[in-house]
């Protein structure tokens, strides 16, 4: 008994050194908190290389809000550094040639891809993000026609940090106009893998704006516009704002939005209808070798602006508005369809819908779907209702 106890104690003592290592320990002052990254492809050193830009937060400048967004001694809140490397992981490690801290992606909120990296290296980017243990599934992906470097240096005007601005766009700002659809990694990858759907990524760009202080430089700020269409291996084209809204309407993702319509056949729209809620249902059928897709939309809206001088809150007036509303929705959807068929990318998920409703038929056409897709006849059935007219019914000035 005594010897066994001795052995036991020795065993325990020998375990203790294992606890002294603390291998995965990262003190909070030794991590570089990356809030967003940008990926670009450039030619350097006689070859194609990746350029990774990272926004690292300077914590002492953000805390408490006591110093505001100016920072001390004019230093911006986040530090934007780039590195060049043969692959993305190479770039990540090369960042440490400039930054003394461990690059920590745990709080990274968004990834911005430049156009050529989205076109050519999309699968590589997705793989890097998916495999990395720190990167979370809720990272937002963006593409831009400008350079990600500039984007990551842009000035977040209202929010504290760029990350907050971007996230606000996803949840608060974006749905109000429904002209951009900000998606996160899990959703994009889900749609990418599913045969018969192609994802759309939000398109962000920079624009020049007036300087913040008198006598200062003009600053670059963020602006969101439309979307980029991804098909299989990479970016294939762009959707304008209206086309993006059409896409969002067709897939039932639109939330609110202003729809200017023309009731009086004027050159300029004279009525604005605000979408409040909508739902959409898609049906795809194969009829004698032709594919027919029917999109049913049910939308509700309010009247928010009226330039005319006639009574509008009457039965005929409401009917007119509803018709114009439905027509406008239809136009936008068809614009999106036209663009998608032009790009030959099934962003609406017709293929997936066929797969769901008729798996046997889908098996036949799956291989040729991208040939069939541009020839799909798309019909829409829009039911639009106008519910309210705001606080006044008829306009102030009547004829």
């Amino acid at each position, binding site marked *: 008994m005594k010897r066994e106890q001795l052995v036991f104690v020795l065993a325990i003592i020998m375990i203790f050194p294992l*606890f*002294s*290592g*603390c291998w*995965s*320990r*990262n*003190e*909070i*002052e030794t*991590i570089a*908190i990356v*809030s967003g990254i940008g990926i670009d492809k450039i030619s350097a050193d006689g070859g194609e290389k990746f350029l990774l830009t990272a926004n690292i*937060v300077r*914590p*002492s*400048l*953000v*805390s*408490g809000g006591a110093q505001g967004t100016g920072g001390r001694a004019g230093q911006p809140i986040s530090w934007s550094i780039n590195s060049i490397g043969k692959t993305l992981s190479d770039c990540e490690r090369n960042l440490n040639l400039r930054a003394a801290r461990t690059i*920590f992606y*745990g*709080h990274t*909120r968004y990834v911005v891809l430049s156009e050529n990296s989205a076109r050519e290296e999309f699968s590589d980017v997705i793989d890097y993000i998916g495999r990395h243990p*720190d990167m*979370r599934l809720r990272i937002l992906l963006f593409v831009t026609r400008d350079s990600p470097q500039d984007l990551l240096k842009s000035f977040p005007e209202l929010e504290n940090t760029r*990350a907050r601005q971007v996230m606000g766009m996803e949840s608060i700002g974006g749905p109000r106009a429904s002209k951009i659809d900000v998606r996160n990694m899990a959703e994009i990858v889900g749609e990418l893998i599913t045969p018969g759907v192609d994802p759309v990524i939000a398109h962000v760009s920079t624009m020049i704006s007036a300087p913040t202080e008198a006598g200062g430089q003009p600053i670059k700020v963020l602006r969101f516009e439309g979307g980029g269409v991804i098909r299989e291996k990479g970016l294939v084209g762009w959707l304008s704002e209206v086309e993006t809204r059409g896409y969002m309407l067709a897939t039932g993702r639109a939330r609110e939005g202003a729809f200017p319509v023309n009731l009086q056949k004027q050159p300029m729209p004279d009525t604005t209808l605000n979408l409040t809620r909508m739902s959409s249902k898609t049906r795809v059928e194969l009829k004698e070798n032709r594919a027919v897709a029917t999109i049913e939309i049910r939308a509700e809206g309010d009247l928010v602006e009226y330039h005319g001088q006639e009574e509008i809150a009457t039965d005929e007036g409401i009917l007119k508005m509803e018709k114009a509303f439905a027509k406008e929705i239809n136009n936008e959807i068809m614009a999106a369809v036209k663009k998608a068929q032009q790009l030959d990318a099934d962003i609406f998920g017709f293929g997936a819908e066929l797969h769901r409703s008729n798996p046997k038929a889908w098996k036949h056409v799956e291989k040729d779907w991208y040939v069939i897709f541009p020839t799909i006849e798309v019909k829409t059935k829009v039911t639009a209702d106008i519910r309210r007219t705001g606080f006044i019914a008829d306009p102030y000035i009547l004829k």
Partner: protein
Amino acid sequence: MFNVLRRKIKTTLGRNKDLQVSHQKFKHGEGSGGIEQRPVDSSLQKNKQVLQQVFNNCIDVKFREFELGTAPPVNLMIVYMDGMVSTTDIHVSTLNRLMLLNGLMEEITPGDTLNLIKNKLLPLAEIKEESDLIKIVDGILAGETVLFIDGERNALLLGAKGWETRAVAEPESEPVVRGPREGFTEKLLTNTVLVRRRIKSSRLKVELTQVGALSKTEIAIMYIEGITNSKVVEEVKKRLERIKTDAILETGYIEEYIQDEWKTPFPTILSTERPDRVAGHLLEGHVVLLVDTTPFALIMPVTFFHFLFAAEDYYASYQVSTFIRLLRLAAVNISLLLPSAYIAVVTFHQEMIPTPLLISIAAAREGVPFPAFVEAFIMEATFELLREAGVRLPRQVGQAISIVGALVIGQAAVSAGLISPAMVIVVALTAIASFSIPNYSGAISLRILRFPIMMLAASLGLFGIMAGLMGLLIHLCSLRSFGVPYISPIAPMVRGDLKDFILRAPRWAMFTRPRMIGYKEPQRQEYMQIPRPPKTNAANKNNDAGNDKK
């Protein structure tokens, strides 16, 4: 050197005669040469001599010789310990009666004086005859007055005890908002009376035993026959008998002698100052020990969760009690885990913190010289020191220094850049949480365990904390307190007991006693006495319409 070694080996093996306990050495009385080991002598002077020798240099033992007021007079002597006897009784009921006799001038037959005095002359409630001098000496030391009668071979022990005791007051360690404010005092008889007033049943048994060679402390074992497991009572008595020591100064001594496991920081016996709590536990089938000279009673067997209950839980309504118990559960978790969780999250799992908070913490820690673990350790140790210091200081000063001092020191340390403000908050929250645990020994064990878990958190993050908690769980699951598993009713799951566990069921729903402890008589109240208003009869409806008539 060898002598030292030999002596040490002998001590370990228990054979060192020089290290005998008092009770072995003085088994035959404490006087030198066993002078007490004899019966009472019929000669008064002889007795007086012996006693004076035994109580040599004890000036508080008083000898008073006097004569019985009969003709011929008989020599009497009383011996008593000054201060431990009720002098009124001595003057009025003893000396008065015996010396002045109230006109009872009879013929005294030798040999009959004892009975005459005992049965006719002394109007005292308690008189005992005794012939063994050892017991007489014990009696004097316990406050009895001894009456020696010249010519008799027995002495009389007069029960006229009385000494200064504390009044019955609110127990300071367990105050309540609602409930009785009586607390135990240092006198055993007062304490048993306080319990008897709450359980007026002859099934409440009170057995007496004595422990301690020099202190000869009286211990009362109380239990309710028929509800308590008799095996537990026997076990308690057996363990008390096994205690061979010099003195029992507090129930803590007894606790450490009779507890089931000594290697654990968790207490397996509950101590309390409140008689209502004792009565409540007696009714559930526990066994209670009351010890003379200390107001703390011991309750056994208990589970871990008994240390998280307060007396008030049973006096307030069930919603309030449930809410407060949930709060206490959170307090237990915070008290044990908060500093470790902070260390683990800040050092290993930064992705768990919401981004703005992470940035604040990072900013706050930029200038701090110590890593998170050292910071936490220093602050916790300082807080524990402050708390202990606060207990020792006089009451008014102590409160101020504990709380205010801690916060001020914390603030100063933050300003000096030694620690980060988040740490101050963590430590303050932990301290407040540990104060809200009702029982001191329970809170102490959690406080102690906080430090090893902090070390595990610093080395292995959340995994380390979890491993520490699993080890703790294994330990808790293997503990038993007088046969009751320590963390029932969770494990083993006793569904009937869950009604008084975290949530407290309404009073009408608590019909059974805790199964593990009071299983001999499971039901304690009528089934389903749900309170409700009386059913109304159409004829005597007292509704609003009736008001019109008036």
